[in-house]
């Protein structure tokens, strides 16, 4: 990892964990370190959450700190805000990010505004965790990628890890941040692979990382698409004997525009990959920013490989919706060969 850690002298690593377990561990570590941290949400207690992310936490930290709430997202987020204002450090779970819509008013009109409304007097230690994204043959509303609704909402930080290690380090940072953080978990890779995590690593929000350096093109992505993209990049590099730099954004708002710009100033070409629908997606913002900030370095149009501008289909057709290696390779080829 190219980005700094809060504790550079990290020595121990865990055995390889899935992302689910890494998040669980991050929660456990924060709860152990700070008794103001409480976990609340639907089915987070006895059941350990529908994805088992909070498994065992209630047993360990008690029913007062790991709380099964009524089925009411506006109240989970709204009461979470109240908890935070009252001095606690709530970590709210919304079962699927598509159901955060039910709490959208709380996110937009309160979470993102409490600090500015009070002229800085009432900051929020406040995290909403929610699984996001597709590719798991789920039911309707369980596969969408809605990060832009919050990226476009001032006052909220949006974080999306791409694997177990970043999930661990970013969640710990998010709980400590002191600003409202929406922590989106790419459920497509919840259990896709294992990685050791560094039990003291607290990553800095707002910093992207260069997963793999390269000279000819910059691929920018995040979440589950990192894995798909890395595969595609290997393929494309083999095919074209080109060298591609891969950037994992990690924080989507505010995203690390400086790192992206520096990379594209070097490579002159950029492909952005995300699952969210194209129009108004993060790819648009990145493309626009590159256009503004390093127009004269661009040697080809910034390409976007994204979900289409349609509702996420039921699962039989989800492969037709989601970006995959084939599409990413095609975009890389087109961008590398554009004249």
């Amino acid at each position, binding site marked *: 990892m190219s980005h700094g850690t809060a504790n550079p002298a990290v020595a121990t690593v865990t055995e390889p964990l899935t992302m689910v377990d890494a998040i669980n561990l991050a929660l456990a570590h924060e709860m152990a370190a700070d008794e103001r941290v409480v976990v609340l949400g*639907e*089915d987070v*207690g*006895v*059941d*350990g959450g*529908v*994805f*088992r992310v909070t*498994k065992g936490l209630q047993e360990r930290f008690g029913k007062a700190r790991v709380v*099964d*709430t*009524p*089925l*009411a*997202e*506006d*109240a989970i987020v709204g009461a979470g805000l109240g908890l935070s204002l009252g001095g606690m450090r709530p970590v709210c779970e919304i079962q699927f990010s*598509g*159901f955060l*819509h*039910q709490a959208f008013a709380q996110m937009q009109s309160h979470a993102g505004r409490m600090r500015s409304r009070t002229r800085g007097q009432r900051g929020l230690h406040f995290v909403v965790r929610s699984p996001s994204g597709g*590719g*798991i*043959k*789920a*039911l*309707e*509303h*369980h596969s969408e990628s809605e990060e832009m609704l919050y990226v476009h909402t001032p006052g909220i930080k949006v974080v999306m890890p791409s694997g177990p290690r970043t999930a661990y380090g970013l969640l710990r940072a998010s709980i400590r941040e002191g600003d409202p953080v929406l922590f989106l978990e790419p459920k*497509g*890779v*919840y*259990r*896709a692979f294992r990685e050791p995590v560094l039990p003291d690593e607290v990553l800095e929000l707002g910093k992207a990382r260069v997963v793999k350096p390269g000279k000819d093109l910059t691929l920018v992505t995040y979440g589950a698409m990192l894995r798909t993209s890395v595969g595609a990049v290997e393929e494309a590099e083999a095919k074209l004997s080109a060298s591609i730099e891969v950037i994992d954004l990690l924080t989507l708002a505010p995203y690390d525009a400086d790192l992206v710009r520096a990379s594209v100033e070097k490579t002159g070409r950029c492909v952005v990959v995300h699952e969210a629908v*194209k129009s108004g997606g993060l790819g648009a913002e990145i493309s626009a920013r590159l256009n503004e900030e390093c127009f004269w370095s661009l040697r080809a149009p910034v390409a976007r490989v994204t979900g*289409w*501008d*349609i*509702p996420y*289909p*039921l*699962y*039989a*057709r*989800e*492969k*037709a*919706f989601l970006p995959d290696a*084939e*599409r990413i390779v*095609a975009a890389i080829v087109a961008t590398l060969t554009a004249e």
Partner: protein
Amino acid sequence: MPRTSIPIDPIHHLSVLDEHGKVDRKLLPAIPPEKLLRMYATMVRSRRLEESMLRRQRQGQMGTFAPAMGQEACQVGAMAALEERDWLVPSFRELPAALWRGAPMKNVFLYAMGFEEGSEVGDPDRDRVLPISIPVGSQACHAAGLAWASKLKGDGAVAIAFFGDGATSEGAVHEGMNFAGAMTLPAIFFCQNNQWAISTPRRIQTASATIAQKAVAYGIAGVQVDGNDLFAVYRAVSEAAERARKGEGATFIEAVTWRKSVHTTADDPRVYRTEAEEKAWEGKDPVVRVRRFLEAEGLWDAAKEEALVAAADREVNEAFDAAVAYRDGDVDPLEIFDHVFKTTPPDLLRQREQARAWIGGRRVIIGAGKAKTKPGGAAAVGELEEADDAPSKKGGAR
């Protein structure tokens, strides 16, 4: 009068046929035997279909779904008390209701295999059924609106919304019921209190002693019924529909029942439910209760039961095969672009072309051509894994 009590309309509890087969003849609704047998048959067909779906889901032949087992009396009782012109607004656990309204089992399988095709009805004007709606609580406002449309058109139709005990905590349910109360709409809000919202017990949802009493907040009629009692449900819904058609407004019904099976196939109730609870409810199975009644009335016997079950199983198998044939046939994956707007805008047409070029000849329909018995399908990495990684991984039917 410094400290006085505010008078509050009573909330009633209704039960007609108890678990021992004892029936209150005064309250027993007059249902013609033919209709009664169709009601029973629908309950059995639903049960057989879901048992088959649970098996097939575990074998990787279809995706996850939410079984209604144990709630058949709620749904068939309610729908049978209504008319064809009345609107059905389901959540995600309303198979018996859908079957009563004539949903083909093939569509049920198609939906579970991830095809929007499964939501189609024969004639959208005549088949007054909304598609499955998964966001908990979303049904109440839609039903209020449908009831309102019917009031404006004066067509005498009623709208019924189904939702669960958990849904009563959602703001949207409150808003819909309050709307219907304030506007005196011909709506029926039917809460199947099956004791659980996934792993969350009824007790955690709300401190109110009953769910039915929430009607007091809206100034609408409130009734609690034994939801495993086909006749109590039928009567409560008949009375609610009559009130609605007379212009007397909405009713909130709490049907006390029990989710016999898993929340969805991704769930494992053993994590959060006790055996004692399962025992306590076992004897109250709504299907068995009706069969006993029919037998006592001389309307049913073992041979008829056997024939019914055999016919249901045949129907299930044929429907499954038809759904598989559809899935494995010439399905257009890019049809998803065609039903977003009335007329597909130029930009989406271009995206459709891009998608076509990129897919090329690849087969991208998930599940197509899948071996019928590939085990553990849905548990593979990258597929839906709400379940634990504990031994009881797939949280099968109980």
